[in-house]
């Protein structure tokens, strides 16, 4: 698979991931562009990996986390009008609630936000997230726990205790 073939097939999905990760169209564009510029230069090595797209997404996460130009933070608002969430009894109330959630997501520390996106959007396990972020699973759980608390999200099930042997810290 050439770089062009990969881009034609997978770039839209990659861009959606970047948009969810950053919450900002311009930032998503900048991050993906930077990553693809680098990936294009060493595509022969990347394409030999088991999952090239997963690697690209990992690069995007790392690029996002190291982004140093975020001198401003766009608080997204009004973007959640096409949700597939549970039907709210009052749609306008749902709009307000989503808007508040977007704003609170935008205020999270970058790594906490990344953990939530990888867990709830990408559907990765904590082990896989730890691999992407280069940290321990326990650290992932810690980030997730803090982020969910900040967003006042109630877990459907209590988190599975992490064995002490692999529990990590910050």
């Amino acid at each position, binding site marked *: 698979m050439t770089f062009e073939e990969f881009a034609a097939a997978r770039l839209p999905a990659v861009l959606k991931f970047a948009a969810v990760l950053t919450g900002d*169209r311009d930032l998503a564009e900048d991050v993906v562009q930077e990553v693809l510029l680098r990936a294009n230069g060493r595509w022969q090595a990347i394409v030999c990996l088991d999952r090239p797209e997963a690697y690209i997404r990992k690069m995007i996460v790392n690029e996002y986390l190291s982004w140093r130009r975020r001198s401003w933070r766009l608080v997204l608002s009004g973007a959640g009008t096409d949700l597939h969430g549970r039907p709210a009894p009052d749609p306008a109330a749902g709009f307000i609630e989503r808007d508040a959630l977007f704003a609170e997501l935008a205020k999270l520390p970058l790594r906490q936000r990344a953990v939530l996106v990888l867990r709830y959007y990408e559907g990765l396990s904590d082990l896989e997230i730890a691999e992407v972020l280069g940290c321990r699973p326990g650290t992932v759980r810690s980030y997730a726990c803090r982020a969910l608390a900040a967003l006042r999200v109630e877990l459907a099930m209590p988190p599975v205790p992490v064995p002490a042997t692999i529990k990590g810290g910050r």
Partner: protein
Amino acid sequence: MRTEDDLRAALVALERHAPSADTVLRAVRDGAGQRRPGAGRRWPGWVRAARPARSPRWPHLVTGLATAAAVAGLVVALLAGGASPGAGGQRPDPAASGALPSAASLGKAMLTAFSAATGDVLYTKTTTTKKGVAVGIGQDWYWPAQPVPGQPARTREVLTLSSSPARPLKLTEDTSITYTAPPAGAEKVSGHVTVVCYAGTGQTGCGYGPTETPPGTWSQHSGRFLNPVSDTNVSPSNIARQIAKGQWRITRRTQLAGQPVIELTATKTSQYAPLPALLWVNARTYLPIRMTTRSEVGQPDWVGRSDYRYLKPTAAALAQLQVHIPAGYPRSANG
């Protein structure tokens, strides 16, 4: 408390901010170093900084500038609108169907939506008709859409009028105001006014506040002028509060200009008379799209309609805030 499903749904909704694959690929193909991070920022820094935390305000329309005197007698407060570009999504939109919102929550949702669009350019087009024939069109641009006190702001109004339904519409007056946004509720602002008064329209002069500009000339004035976005008139926040107070009755969901909307009718307790006065709010963005009203008593044939749009402050949109001085028009001796 929110659920994990709420969070999942919110994250999926953010997909709509995905940039264009073509744009990214083109930049990548163009080669490394052609575009540096951050180079594509579309908004000037102070606009970006000002986007959050604004008090919503909705400029009144026909009476927005003193030039509204040219359409005195119409006195049709018209509002109208459209959604911000990019509103809506590919998926089925639950806001487009189903239960109607309560008045209180709709009012709150509108205030939230106004705050989100605060840094945009607000464009309104107000058309007044008599017996179905257009006799006046007012186009207004406001930037920022809802300025905060102390912030530089600009407005422009272009009036195209006819003296009677039998006569064609003519470009009549072009006015811009550059000013510093005053504290909420202030009636006056400090700034600069530029007026172009077009010749051949039958009018004897143009003006904003105390300024006077003869036909076929332009003028520029500095000083204190009527606040172009006075809160005492029809404003988004006022409309939202009116809705919450029951002065507008939510009647139905329908479609308008291809968009799902919530239709409202002014009640007898509203300030709008004579009735009917109708308002359509975008069911996805909760921004107003259009309002139609009748004129004051005594002018039963006059109907006003305003369409309302929020534009991203691109170079093209900001260019609309500039008054065009026709070639050959001298500067008025008055200013």
